[in-house]
């Protein structure tokens, strides 16, 4: 599956402008919903985390992976991240991995943010925006739920309450293998 054939999945997405997503929240509009996707193959994702380690989506085949596109300047992204981490903590032993893809910010900006927010999510840097292009993301936050077969099962454009019981149930349904020893490190 090429990024181009994946594109229709996300063509409904809105423009990449944080202000728009911010406006949704500030205006009191309903939070985003997890909606079913067409089941397209997930585009490639191979980036480095803040420690310089290579993180590849393909290495997590067999687990459910939440791929969350975010930036520190995006208020709805910042708002949902603590609940995303709590979901990761609850389901890590039940087959869930979370990869938070930061859009083009410097580690010197990201790490203090994570420290301040007390977040220890796996954060990778989309340093040149090419992964955002491949995944056709136009709004932050946008989150893809990739099933153990590396197909996109669910997508959310905008902020999600990851503590919501129904959200958790839909992700649990996807299942996933336990973490390997290496993945626990």
């Amino acid at each position, binding site marked *: 599956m090429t990024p181009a054939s994946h594109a229709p999945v996300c063509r409904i997405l*809105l*423009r*990449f*402008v*944080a*202000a*728009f997503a*911010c406006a949704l929240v500030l205006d009191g509009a309903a939070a985003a919903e997890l909606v079913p996707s067409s089941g397209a193959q997930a585009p490639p994702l191979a980036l*480095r985390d803040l420690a*310089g380690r290579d993180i590849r989506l393909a290495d997590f085949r067999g687990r459910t992976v939440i791929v969350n596109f975010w930036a520190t*300047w995006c208020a709805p992204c910042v708002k949902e991240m603590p609940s995303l981490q709590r979901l990761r903590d609850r389901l890590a032993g039940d087959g869930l991995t979370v990869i938070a893809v930061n859009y*083009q*910010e*410097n*580690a*010197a*900006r990201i790490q203090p943010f994570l420290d301040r927010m007390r977040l220890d999510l796996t954060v990778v*840097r989309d*340093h*040149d*925006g*090419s992964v955002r*292009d491949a995944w056709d993301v*136009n709004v932050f936050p946008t989150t893809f739920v990739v099933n153990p077969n590396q197909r996109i099962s669910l997508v959310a454009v905008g902020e999600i309450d990851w503590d919501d019981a129904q959200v958790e149930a839909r992700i649990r349904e996807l299942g996933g293998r336990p973490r390997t020893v290496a993945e626990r490190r």
Partner: protein
Amino acid sequence: MDRRTFVTAAATLPFATALSPLALAQARTFTPRPGDWRTFEVVTRLDVANPTGATQAWVPVPAVDANWQKSTPGTWSGNMQQAELVTDPVYGAKMVHVTWAEAEKAPWIEVTSRIQSRDRALDWSRKSSPAADPAELALALKPTALMPTDGIVRETASKIVAGKTTDVERVRALYDWVVVNTYREPKVRGCGVGDIKGMLETGNMGGKCADLNALFVALCRSSGVPARDLYGIRVAKSAFGYRELGAGSPDITKAQHCRAEVFLTEYGWVAMDPADVAKVMRQEAPEWLKDPKHELVAPVNAGLFGAWEGNWMAYNVAHDVALPGSRGAKLGFFMYPQAESRGERIDSLDPDTFKYKITSREVPA
């Protein structure tokens, strides 16, 4: 000062100080006129913070020579392994490409460029048949990755220019449409992304110069009028008192600004800047001025259709720029210093963590 002048000033001053800012705005003018050349020296200093491996950088330098700007790309110094002046093969953008040794823990370079600049204004009453470079005009009609000219862009342009019979009328209609239908969004990072298709599809018409002027340019191109964005940086204050249309201090690190040009057969390349009209509407006064006929906006709205001030330095007109020596994605446009460490791009919109600083000073004649 003669007696008549003194009486006028004395009578006016106490009254003027009591006027509201909006009332004072009624006295504003914005009439750039080609005059004396001014010389500016622009220094770009990069200190790549926390390099993680082999590091390289690309510093844009002015590459535009016209009857309103003369460019000298400049000189540089630093602790680099190698530095060279490189020219983009498609658009002619110039940059200093610098590489540092992997062991270098504190890479830095300082690039000094000079331009001569002056106001630019078109006399609409004087038609001529200026020479045109066919290749240049062809490039100014082509779509780019972020500026498609088909689909919703063409549909939008067609509606706007319906019934217009000359290129001047079409450009006027497109300029007015951008001023009325878009707005300056201060929250957008940098000068914006320039994703004009996204703007039209979502109806979210807020942005900055790289969005609004790119939209104008793409609408012109899809209407068959050659047009181009010029990416640059403000180097001095506005001579007409508009705070938002100039650099507020010698530190111009965040003063990047892009303008536009259209090619009109009877006039040649003509200055345009609807994005700066939008900036005045949104930011010049304490309140958002939504009427382009407002006394503060009207002079700028009229002036920037065919003229601009020489308080700005153009770097280039480039799109889809492949940085030499980089395996990273192409740049939609090239207006900010770029760097990579261990093959990863550093956020060019974050000068504080990058780090870089750009300063400007006028060199006395």
